[in-house]
């Protein structure tokens, strides 16, 4: 009997439209991830990263393939994973406290208890003093931290983070990298992370998947052995520099092929 992995993605394909206008978003995407690992998916725009995430999140059905978490299929079963996007998507009329407790209150936990449960994460993310504020009173970094706490509060064993720090400035992003790595190590989180930024992927991940476009498919898979948490100086390590160079070459070839096509 084949070894069962924590997350198994096998043979996923998805096409949009029909006839001449049909676009194959992803074709035969397969990979697996073990519990407590951090995997980044990197690729040019339009390579089907978000489609892949939407299928794993149970928000979209594939044309072929399957996704299983601990042996159970995730297809079209939303609510089984924690999902965070580049837009913080905080409800503007709710306070930070009401936003971060949303996943639990949706599951029927009373607000007071949900807030008690969320407090340690809120504290770890530096939000304790901001709980009474509304999203429009927060900075971009604070809003993303609130969105991160909300994602953690979903209590799901697998987190899908789709370019969560893409809209932030470099300094805020660095502080959030440290925060996320700390949380992942402490809680043993299993994370799938989409990014455009190779350095970000190298700083945070245990594994990096590189996707090519048209159709979206896996063109590279790297395992990083440097200990975590990694300082920014880890990027200067020969292993990291070699992997970065390899990824950049792959992405450059993809962009050239795409432009030629």
């Amino acid at each position, binding site marked *: 009997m084949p070894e069962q992995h924590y997350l198994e993605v096998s043979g996923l394909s998805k096409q949009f439209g029909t006839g001449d206008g049909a676009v194959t978003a992803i074709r035969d995407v397969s990979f697996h991830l073990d519990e407590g690992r951090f995997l980044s998916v990197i690729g040019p725009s339009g390579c089907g990263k978000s489609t892949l995430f939407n299928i794993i*999140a*149970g*928000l979209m059905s594939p044309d072929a393939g399957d996704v299983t978490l601990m042996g159970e299929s995730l297809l079209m079963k*939303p*609510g*089984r*994973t924690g*999902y965070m*996007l580049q*837009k913080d*998507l905080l*409800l503007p*009329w*709710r*306070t*930070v*406290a*009401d936003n971060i407790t*949303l*996943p639990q209150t*949706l*599951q029927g936990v009373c*607000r*007071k208890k949900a*807030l008690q449960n969320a407090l340690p994460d809120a504290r770890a993310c530096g939000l304790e003093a901001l*709980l*009474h504020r*509304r999203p429009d009173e927060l900075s971009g970094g604070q809003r993303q931290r609130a969105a991160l706490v909300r994602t953690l509060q*979903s209590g799901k064993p697998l987190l899908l983070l789709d370019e969560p720090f893409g809209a932030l400035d470099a300094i805020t992003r660095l502080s959030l990298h440290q925060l996320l790595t700390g949380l992942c190590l402490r809680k043993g989180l299993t994370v799938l992370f989409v990014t455009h930024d190779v350095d970000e992927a190298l700083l945070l991940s245990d594994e990096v998947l590189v996707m090519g476009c048209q159709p979206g498919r896996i063109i590279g898979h790297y395992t990083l052995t440097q200990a975590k948490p990694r300082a920014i100086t880890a990027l200067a390590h020969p292993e990291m520099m070699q992997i970065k160079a390899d990824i950049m070459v792959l992405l450059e070839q993809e962009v050239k092929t795409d432009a030629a096509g």
Partner: protein
Amino acid sequence: MRQDKPISRLRINLWRWGLLAALLLFWELGSRTGLIDDFFFSSPSQIWQTAVTKWQSGQLWRDISYTAASTLLGFVLGTVTGSVLGLLFWFSRRVALVAEPWMIVMNALPKLALAPVLVIWFGIGFSSKVVLAFLMTVIVAAMSAYSGVQSVDPALETLLISLGAKRRQIFTRLVVPTALPSVITGLRVNIALAMAGSIVGEFIASDRGLGRMIVYAGTTFDLKLVWVGVVVLSIVSVLMYAGVVALEKLLLLRWTARKAN
């Protein structure tokens, strides 16, 4: 660019009340000196005298309370029914698409033209006025609520689905709060429409109310009483509008500043 000086609120109020005082003084003096025909236009002092007499006899209060009651009842019933209908359209896009042209046609229909029919159907009593006020408000409320429903951010809806929210939960936690400002904005328009409905109902056939008082006074050439009706109606209308504005503020305050515990 011209720099605007700060506007003194006291000065603005002095001008506002000063203009009213000047108008009343001109009206009164014009009437006494014969510059204004006091049969057609009466005078502020004569109108005041007539109002006091009618108030002391109890007739004025009886008419005010009758008109105010039918207006408020029609307004509440129409606004609540319309808003609930408009919000429920979120549950079925198909029903909403079928209902949309109906709502547009119903909104364009001159509902006041139905007044004689409604008086025949519902009698000359209180109910025909309430029904007319209801009809005046229900479609506007439904359209306001529906336009609020249409402004729901699909990304927020996807987020709630990814958190495992049921449709009922998405409705109460996302759709209703998103649509609330549109519903509330519709209130100001609706209170004026409800009053127009009640008054026209009283014009057609009634044994009470300010509308009936104005028509009766007009047919008996008691123009002083017509003016009393017009002035009192204006005051009642302004008070109701102020009440709705206060309600709006209260609701929006609750909407925007729900405090965390």
